[in-house]
């Protein structure tokens, strides 16, 4: 199999594809395109998106309700010129709700309610770096275990940093590890609920000093959280290990999405290294919104050549500056941008070798509908 064909092969054979990359590079669009292509190829594919553009969500038939799988009607696909041999499904992930559901499944009902109200839980489920990534992967695992789809494509949350994603399970486990809390809160925690009621920071020097900053109530709340969550650490750890196993297995592959800008390319290279280090398979690097050189192999035109062409076509060379010189400026600017992109993308390809690099040009408008996704897929998989 040539490396060029490898990404398509992944779409045909893998059960899980995870799209990763910096924010603002078009991860959601790429994820939806991959699922669409797999569905066109005959698979039952679902794209799990997080906070898609409203127009894209509409195009996929996604209502505002989170965590509900929705089938994209074949009729819509046909109208967009796509003959689906399989099925396309979509789901908008509600990460907060996924966390709450997860707690409900993991913890007895009486304790779950107390946990959901706790401020430390709220940090865990929304603000903690990595927690969104963790629950997205957890949800992916849950859906994959259900076995209802041939292929799941996950669009991950916008990540400020590659490590937020890869290190996510560890960060969550770190948070839940109550060894630290026990050391500080000590006897109160050991004494259980009764102890908590009588909790005071009396003789504990460290806790006393800390409470000067945080207020005693914060530490009380921490103690309560740790108490309720006790015993779930192993459940989380077990699940995190299973998720990691799935992502590292032959059934899964990553697709790294990037733009051609210098900073996002640096981040993509770093991300690729980290994935390789974790022995994760990377099916492709997708460079999105690459500037086109409209001239292709042609040399730079002169204003005179363009003016001459306009005259022959009967188009007035009017305006200030004249049309011919505005055309020259525009086509040369595009070439300069394309040259710059090509330079950055060559660096990316060299750093990620032998992972194949697929390029999608910058379209005239951004992609928000099924025909747009289909056009993107034809750029990703030309001739397939």
């Amino acid at each position, binding site marked *: 199999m040539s490396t060029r064909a490898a990404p398509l092969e992944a779409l045909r054979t893998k059960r899980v594809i995870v799209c990763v990359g910096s*924010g*603002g*590079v078009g991860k959601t669009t790429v994820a939806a395109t991959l699922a669409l292509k797999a569905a066109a190829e005959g698979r039952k594919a679902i794209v799990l998106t997080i906070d898609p553009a*409203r127009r894209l969500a509409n195009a996929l038939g996604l209502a505002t309700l989170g965590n509900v799988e929705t089938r994209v009607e074949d009729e819509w696909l046909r109208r967009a010129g796509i003959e689906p041999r399989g099925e396309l499904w979509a789901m908008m992930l509600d990460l907060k709700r996924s966390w709450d559901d997860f707690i409900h499944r993991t913890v007895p009902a009486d304790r779950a309610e107390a946990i959901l109200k706790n401020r430390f839980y709220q940090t865990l489920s929304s603000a903690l770096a990595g927690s969104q990534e963790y629950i997205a992967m957890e949800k992916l695992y849950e859906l994959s275990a259900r076995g209802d789809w041939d292929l799941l494509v996950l669009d991950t949350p916008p990540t400020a940093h590659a490590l937020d994603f890869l290190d996510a399970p560890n960060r969550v486990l770190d948070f839940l590890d109550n060894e630290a809390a026990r050391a500080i809160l000590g006897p109160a925690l050991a004494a259980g609920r009764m102890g908590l009621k009588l909790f005071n920071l009396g003789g504990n020097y460290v806790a006393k000093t800390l409470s000067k900053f*945080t207020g005693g*109530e914060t530490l009380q709340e921490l103690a309560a959280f740790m108490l309720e969550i006790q015993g779930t650490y192993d459940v989380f750890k077990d699940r995190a290990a299973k998720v990691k196993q799935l992502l590292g297995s032959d059934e899964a592959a990553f697709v790294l999405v990037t733009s051609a800008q210098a900073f*996002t390319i640096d981040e993509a290279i770093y991300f690729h290294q980290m994935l390789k280090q974790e022995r994760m398979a990377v099916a492709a690097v997708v460079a999105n919104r690459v500037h086109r050189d409209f001239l292709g192999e042609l040399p730079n035109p002169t204003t005179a050549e363009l003016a001459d062409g306009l005259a022959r076509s009967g*188009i007035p060379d009017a305006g200030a500056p004249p049309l011919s010189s505005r055309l020259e400026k525009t086509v040369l600017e595009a070439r300069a941008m394309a040259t710059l992109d090509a330079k950055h993308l060559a660096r990316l390809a060299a750093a990620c070798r032998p992972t194949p690099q697929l390029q999608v040009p910058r379209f005239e408008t951004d992609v928000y509908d099924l025909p747009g996704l289909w056009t993107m897929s034809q750029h990703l998989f030309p001739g397939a």
Partner: protein
Amino acid sequence: MSLFDRRLLVNTGKGGVGKSTVSAALALAAAGRGKRVLVCEVNTHERISVLLGARAVGTEIGRVADGVDAVVVRPQEAMRQYGLMQLRYRAVYKAVFENRFVSRFLRFIPSLPELVMLGKILHHVREAKWDLVVVDAPATGHGVTFLRVPQVLLDTVPPGAMRSDAEWMNALLVDPQVTAVNLVSLPEELPVNETIELGNAVKGTLRMHPGHVFLNRAYERRFTDAEIEALDRTLEPPCLDAAANAAHAQAARAGLTDRYRAKLREALGLPVLDIPFLAATDEFGRPAIDAVAALLSRAEGRP
């Protein structure tokens, strides 16, 4: 009131819209008017020094251009500085904050990492060393969480060190004479929607004063509709055909720029300043930042 007369400019927006470019350019423009400027990047990869072609500064304040200093603010170092300020004695700090267990869970205390980072930044605002502090804030969602911390603490925390810090911090943030929040956006669907939500959050829940909306990578209208229509067919020679295609793409982007600029203006009622798409220059080089700085300086008028 000019942006440059404020003491604190917070630049925020969706990831990848060019917040760092705007922060670096604003800093240069202010320094060009004789201001002493400090740029704070919040818990991210260092970019300002790279953009300005200077050596990396890390978490220690360093010079990145004439009149411009920069620093990366991270929770751990900010926590140490904050802890020392509060505890006064290094030994006590070590015993408590560097306690193996405490240091592990300090970052989990709701709002504490944000509080210490914001505290460090606002501490610099109060220092006489700088006339202007420019903050390259975290991306949208995190940005609001970040700026809301003092308010959240005032609502939830009983009297103590954290609360009294929250009080003076909040006072600086909501004072329109001191602070303005700039929104950075792109002429694209998602960034524009997020900018509108963010702008409403700034005026609403944050009760802060919005400054400018910067529309980055804006395309100028270069061709008339009639010209685009006339060019919309196969043309000879091939180089003219290629140029016509390039013009078509340019015009489409210019149309989007107009549409999204109007949408931002209407939804936010704020001045929207275009930062033109700088073709033919590496977007992340000093010449590009100088060009944007000159543009911002012109837009604000002569001092």
